[in-house]
Each structure stands twice: as C-alpha cells, then as structure tokens.
C-alpha cells in the first residue's frame, strides 16, 4: 500500500510538471497582448511598452515560466495583469463559490443517483426500473446550459422562488446556499443521470456474481444481499465516475457560472482569457488540473479502502 501510494505520488508530481509546461506553452502562444488590451483603441505604442514593462512582460518566456513555477511551489501565483491583485487571493475568493458549488452539485447528484440506481437495480425490468432508465436517458441528453436556461425561466422569472443568479456571499450561509441551488441543480442533473446508470449496471453486474448466490444460500433475502454484499462491491466503478465527474463539475461550471453570473473560477478564467490575463489563466488551469489529479489520486486510495485486494497488490 505504501509503495503503491509513493509511486502514485511520484507519477503525480511528474504529471503536474508536464501539465504546467503544457499550460504555459499553450497560454503564451495565444495571440493578444494584455497591455494592448488594457489600453484600448487610442493607446500609443510607448504607453503600451511602458505598461508591458510594468507588468513584467518584457522578461523572456523561459524565465517567466521558471518564476511562475517557483512561485507556485511557495503558494505565490504572481499578480494579475488586469486586476493587479495577487492571483492566489483572487483564486481563493473565487474558490469560495466554485468549490461549494461543485460539492453541492456532487452531493446532489450522488443523493439522486444512489437511491435511483438502487431502486432500478433491485426492481430490474419492472416499472420502476424502466422509469428510472428512461429518466436517465433523458438526463444524459439534455445540455446543461439549456437546462439552466429553462430553470431560470421557470423558478426565477415565472415563480420567483429563487433569484436569477448572483451570489450574496457567505455572510448569510442560508442565502448563499439558496443562490447556489439552481446552478447546482443544473450541474447535477445530467451528472446524476450518468451516475445512476453506472450505479445500476454496476449493481446488476455484482448481483450476478457467485458470492451473491453464496450469500443467498446463507439465508439472506434479496434486500439484505443488496445492502450487505452488492453495494460495496458495486461502489468501485461508481467511485471512478465520481472522481471523473469532479473535473466535469469544476469545468462544466464555466458555462453555468456564466448563465447565473456567479463570481466563480469558471467566470474568472473566461474573463481572464478574453482579457489575456495570462498569469491568471495559467494559474487557474493549473489549479484545476491539480485538483483533478489529486482527486483521482484520492479516488484511487478510496478504491484501496473499498477493495482489500488492492491494498497488497500492485
């Protein structure tokens, strides 16, 4: 287990390094100059040059890459070109919206998917199963931005139950949660559909295993078998999907944050790209990649917890 953890950690570090280089390269070759962007149509070349110097853009690329990389190791992501505040501070602020949103959506999708998947698997071929399956087919097919649009139309504009968007801050946690509810639903439903499908098929697979028959021979009823034996084994593929979903939730939030004008990471990155705030783009993408890689790492460890075979193997 330890060796497994350590090798995974090493490959994780290499992955992050490669990722940082790729991100830096891609972002830097994008045409567009942050200084020119900031100074607009009437700017004169010497003004632009002055601003470039002030932003530190006149330093060579490899040097800036190393600076950025070194800074990140100490938690210093540099200073935003357009906002002129420390990037770490900006990210931290936005994270307070995006992370709760992703977690909220993840919780919602899990809370919907688990019971629905269980129901469908335990009533295989019955009306409940067919209903759940049909709902998931639809859920997978609906684009979340369109769904978000319909949600706003119904719940914010017509019914007025929720505000149409915006984020009041965490001073009032209840209001904050309420503001995140519609976006979380828009994000969660398509994911819940996928998760339900995985849950169902994984459960059905496990229910066909030999040890399920063994357990039935011990005198466990169908329900007991499902809870005590099938669930934990079925969880393994489900965990993978949850791990993968995390990245989709963080990234999928870009459009959703746009629709609900939430001041989250997604909107930050969208804005930063259009303003050519390179350092913000690089840092946020890096952070997302880091999050995904570490979450998947955690999922791998969770695997080991769920499956004792993995603790000694590998």
């Amino acid at each position, binding site marked *: 287990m330890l060796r497994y953890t350590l090798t995974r950690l090493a490959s994780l570090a290499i992955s992050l390094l490669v990722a940082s280089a790729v991100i830096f390269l891609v972002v830097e070759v994008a045409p*567009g100059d942050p200084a*020119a962007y900031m100074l607009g149509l*009437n700017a004169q070349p010497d*003004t632009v040059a002055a601003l470039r110097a002030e932003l530190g853009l006149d330093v060579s690329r490899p040097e800036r890459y190393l600076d950025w990389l070194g800074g990140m190791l100490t938690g210093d992501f540099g200073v935003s070109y357009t*906002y*002129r505040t420390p990037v770490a501070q900006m990210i931290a*602020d936005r994270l307070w919206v995006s992370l709760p949103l992703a977690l909220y959506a993840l919780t919602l999708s899990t809370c919907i998917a688990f019971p629905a998947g269980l129901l469908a698997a335990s009533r295989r071929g019955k009306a409940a199963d067919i209903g759940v399956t049909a709902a998931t087919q639809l859920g997978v097919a609906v684009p979340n931005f369109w769904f978000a649009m319909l949600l706003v139309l119904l719940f914010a504009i017509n019914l007025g139950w929720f505000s149409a968007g915006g984020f009041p801050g965490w001073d009032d946690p209840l209001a904050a949660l309420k503001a995140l509810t519609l976006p979380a639903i828009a994000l969660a439903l398509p994911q819940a559909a996928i998760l339900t499908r995985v849950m169902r098929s994984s459960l059905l697979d496990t229910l066909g295993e030999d040890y399920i028959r063994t357990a039935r021979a011990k005198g466990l009823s169908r329900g007991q078998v499902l809870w005590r034996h099938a669930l934990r084994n079925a969880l393994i593929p489900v965990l993978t999907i949850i791990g993968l979903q995390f990245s989709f939730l963080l990234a999928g939030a870009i459009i959703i944050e746009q629709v609900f*004008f939430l001041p989250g990471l997604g909107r930050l990155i969208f804005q930063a790209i259009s303003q050519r705030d390179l350092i913000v783009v690089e840092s946020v993408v890096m952070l997302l990649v880091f999050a995904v890689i570490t979450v998947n790492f955690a999922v791998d460890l969770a695997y080991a917890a769920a499956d004792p075979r993995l603790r000694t193997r590998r």
Partner: protein
Amino acid sequence: QQSDLTIALQLEPPHLDPTSAAAGAIDSVLYANVFEGLTRFGADGGILPGLAERWEVSDDGLTYTFDLRDGVTFHDGTAMNAEDVKFTLDRARAEDSANAQKALFEDIAEVTAPDPQTVRITLSQPNGALPFNLAWGDAVIVAPESIDAIKQAPVGTGPFRFEEWVQGDRIELARYADYWGEAPALEAATFKFISDPTAAFAAMMAQDIDAFAGYPAPENLPQFEADPRFQVLVGSTEGETILAMNNGQPPFDNALVRAAVAHAINRQDIIDGAMFGLGTPIGTHFAPHNPDYLDLMDFSPFDPEKARALLAEAGFADGFTTTLKLPPPSYARRGGEIVGAQLRAVGIETEITNLEWAQWLEEVFRGKDFGLTIVSHTEPADINIYARPDYYFQYDNPDFQALMKELSATSDMAARTELLHQAQRMIAEDHVNAYLFQLAFPTVADARLRGLWENQPTQATDLTGVSWAE
C-alpha cells in the same frame, strides 16, 4: 423610502484607476461618482465646471488659468489643492505614463500651481479643446498620497466613497459625508456586473437589480416597456458604429469598391435585425445629436444595383472574397451576420471570424490584418482619427490631415463648424468606411427611479442626481 440602489453594468472594471487603462467600465462605475476632474461632462454632453469653478484663457490661447473650488476634500480627509492637480496632470503626460489617452495632454507644455486654489496650464500650441479634454475620465484628479493603492482602493473627491469590491460580482459605494457640493439622494449604491444577456434579462425580471445601464439585449426592451414595474430609457452615445474597411489593402484601396460596399448595405435592416430598431442611421463619422452633424446618407443609399455596377467598374464583376472580423459586442456579431448576407447579395463573399477583444486588438487594430470589421467608436468627437494614416483602417488623405490641423488651431465656433462639415463630407464622399448607425444606450430601470442619465456623452453612470420617487 428606499435610499440605496443596485444597478447593473455589463462589464466589470479590470481595476479602479481611470487614469491608467482604456476600460470604459472603470469610468462607468467611478466617473462623477468617486472621481471628478477640473471640468466634467453634463448629461447632454456639454462641458461644465468640475473641481475648477471657472477658468480663463489668455489671448494667445496658450495659457489657461483654473480657479479651484473651496473646501474640496478627498475621501481620506485630505484637502484637494492645486498641487494635486499638478501631480495628476504631470503624471498623466509623463514619459512612462500608462494613461490610455495620453494624446489628450499632448499640447500641455507646463502645469504650475501659483497658489493652492489656482492652477495654470501653459500650452505649446493653441488648443481650444482643452476644457473638453480635461473632462475625460482619464483626466480626473487623484492625490499622490493614495496613488499607490488606487487600483484597488480608489480615493477621489466625488459624492460617493468607494466601499468594497467583490471581484467578479459587485462594487459598493457609499455617500461621502464631506462632499463639497450638494449631497446626493442615495446613501449607498451597488454596481453589479452581469455580462450574459440572458442573465441580465433574468436578473431584471426577477428584480434582483433596480436598474441596468447599457442593457445588452435590445430585443427585450418592448417587454420591459410593456411592464408597469419598469421604465426604459433609450439614449444616445458617442458610438459611431461603422463597417470599417482596410483602405490600405486591395480591394478596399479602390474607392469604387468601398463605394460599392457602402451601397450594398441596408442600414435599416441592420438596425432592425441586430438592434431591434434601436439606433440612428448615420452617413458619416459624426454623432447625430451633435449640432455640427450633417446628414450625408445620400452619399451611400441602399442600392444593390449600383453596388454591383460599381464593383463591375472596379473590375470585380464576379465579386470577391474578403474577411469580416467581428469583436464580441452583439451589434458587431449580429450586425456582421446581416452585413455578410447583404454583401453576398451583391457578390461579395465574407468569411466571418468572431474574435475576442484581445484578438481583435492584436489582429485588426494593431496588425491591420483584415478586410472588413464592425466596431463602434465610442470616444467623443473623434473624427480626427481619419487624420492618422497608421490608424487601423489606414485612410491616408493629406487634404484631410491639413483640415484637422487647421481645426485644432481654430477656436472661432463658426469656423470650426465649417471645418467639421468639410471633414464629414470628405470622408463620406470617399466612402472611407461604411457608416451604419449611432449606437443607442438603453437603460432599463425600476419605474420609480428618477434622475438616471439617458444619454452617454461619455461612459459614465452619474448617480449624483438619482433618487427614488415617492
């Protein structure tokens, strides 16, 4: 009685220093609310005294003497005096200045502060537009004490004090108790930033916000007008929306081709299709609400037959293919689709590319790598850009350049009008660009709000006179 206001804007300022970025969004929040200049724009675009109570011009037109108001203090409590003004202007025109409109201060030779209440500006050549130039947001008065933190914590002299900025979401202002002038009716104001038009509609409809200045989706306006909860103000802006042509490159270096394009355009269809009827058609690069405006649309009426004939005459009987690069605003994106269809009707194929602003600046504005583009020129009185041969549409006409030189040396009003008429006619005749319409400025607001600016003589959301009706 409500005394606070939540008003939405489409764009969030990148930072809060109006004197070192071109972002109009900075002025939209801070101009006249937090920062003030020596002079200022009024709601109708006229120049009013600002921090300078009055000014005098020497006979040779080279020296301006400004008398500052008494009792003006910055929000940090320090007094505003002539030294601050000198600091501001010297900073703006310095070698390493990052002021986006440095050209405004080009003619200033020296700024002196003979006494705390007097500022004297000496020019290197006469410039009748100095009071106008000093009204710009890029010329607001800042203090040396607070300049270092200005991008995050702006300290000005206006009726509202900067309170808080939740980046990505909102900026909060509060009434400044020691304001030199009349106290505003509002105690607090929140600017919210909603860039997505759908979100704007939803937020307005759900009454999450009290007003939206520069409402981004004109198609929704009839709905708001019909709703008694709201009022809709449609004002004018300084934005001449043009279909710019690359005069420096074939085929648009050929005046016949440019004329053909100008005749192929149906302005009303563009205004209806892209702006849902909002906007005034123009025939030259000048704002229709300006007293010196000339209606020159007769130079380029919608006439596809003539356009085809002109193309044939220019040697493009079979038409040609060119690029149409569009920046993000919907007037450009939607207008571009219509322009593309209209040009196709006369045989000109366009390859449409949607660009972000940064890309547009790089490729079109700086790189001059384009055939056609659509953009709104929102700077006030900016016909002088046609005198810059290196400007992105690359119009190089010595006659026009001479005309502009003469204009800046002239301070007689009637003579100026005559010169401006000549200039308008010259570019319309030359079909430098195809002139589409003057951008309108729609504001949607709660029906009980009073005193919002209707027009946009400059980018500003002046809240000084805003109040709630009983």
